[in-house]
């Protein structure tokens, strides 16, 4: 079975969820699918009313990816800075984070590319402070980042046995259009 067929099967079985676009006329130019952990964040309920606004700002950022809008990616771990997508260390694990940085707290959504333009998200975390029941990821060299990466790899192995996530050097190997590298001149 191809990995795309596997994604379809997981969606139909309720193990993966496609991003629900708030404006139904928006097209899907790229794909984001996620597990129940990320769905629970997007759907709520949240621990405080103000979390709802922050989550909808994250939703707008995820939709921007799906709508095929311009993004900056950083394949070099630890150097993502303002980039929308950053590859995490070690690159061999093939885990990336989608980075919704503003407003505080920044939120990170962790996952892997199942195919070019198709991102599977398994976990999320607030970057700088405890938020909505989750502990802050904190320093990029901290333990919670490692836990998130392991969690992604573990869930990937369960959902896609025999399939490897996309690996590559150039950003266009992951996102085919309207993506530029943070390091590009």
């Amino acid at each position: 079975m191809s990995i795309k067929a596997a994604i379809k099967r997981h969606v139909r079985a309720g193990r993966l969820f496609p991003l629900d676009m708030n404006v139904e006329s928006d097209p899907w130019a790229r794909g984001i699918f996620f597990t129940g952990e990320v769905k629970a964040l997007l759907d709520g309920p949240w621990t405080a009313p103000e979390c709802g606004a922050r989550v909808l700002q994250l939703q707008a950022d995820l939709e921007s990816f799906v709508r095929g809008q311009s993004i900056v990616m950083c394949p070099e771990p630890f150097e993502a800075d303002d980039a929308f997508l950053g590859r995490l260390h070690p690159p061999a694990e093939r885990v990336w984070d989608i980075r919704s940085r503003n407003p505080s707290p920044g939120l990170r959504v962790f996952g892997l590319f199942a195919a070019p333009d198709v991102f599977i998200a398994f976990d999320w975390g607030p970057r700088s402070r405890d938020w909505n029941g989750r502990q802050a990821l904190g320093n990029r060299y901290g333990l919670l980042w490692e836990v998130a990466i392991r969690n992604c790899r573990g869930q990937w192995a369960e959902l896609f046995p025999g399939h490897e996530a996309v690996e590559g050097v150039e950003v266009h190997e992951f996102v085919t259009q309207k993506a530029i590298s943070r390091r590009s001149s």
Partner: protein
Amino acid sequence: MNLSPKRPFLEEVRSGELIPANKLAYFEQRALNNFYDYVMTRFMAEKERSQLTKAKLAERIGRGPDQVNRWLASPNNWTIATVARLLLGIAGEEPVLSSESLLGKPRSNEYWESILGDDGDLPELKAPPKTGTTRIDSKFERIST
């Protein structure tokens, strides 16, 4: 247990009711992303057409390369002035606004299944979609580089 159906996202926009703060935040972020996409699309086009670089752009608009690198990486700290400055430096253009209704548009035919293809394979690549509810066009001659 609340068994009421989920309220359509655009319901308050449609009905004229108070739009909740959550949704206002969503549409503010969406607009920011639309502006960013427009400017970045112009940057990538000029990069291709006239070999514009971030360094040249920084020089042209009198900002440091680090600042321009940050602006082009994300719209997080953008203001209207940032959009004006970037478009002027990238292509000698100014933003000209237009907007369109969120209501009454048909549901997109390109849904998640289309990304995966009929038998699970990706369909042929399509041109990136035109974005969002607010579109910026720009005019005036481009600066030759």
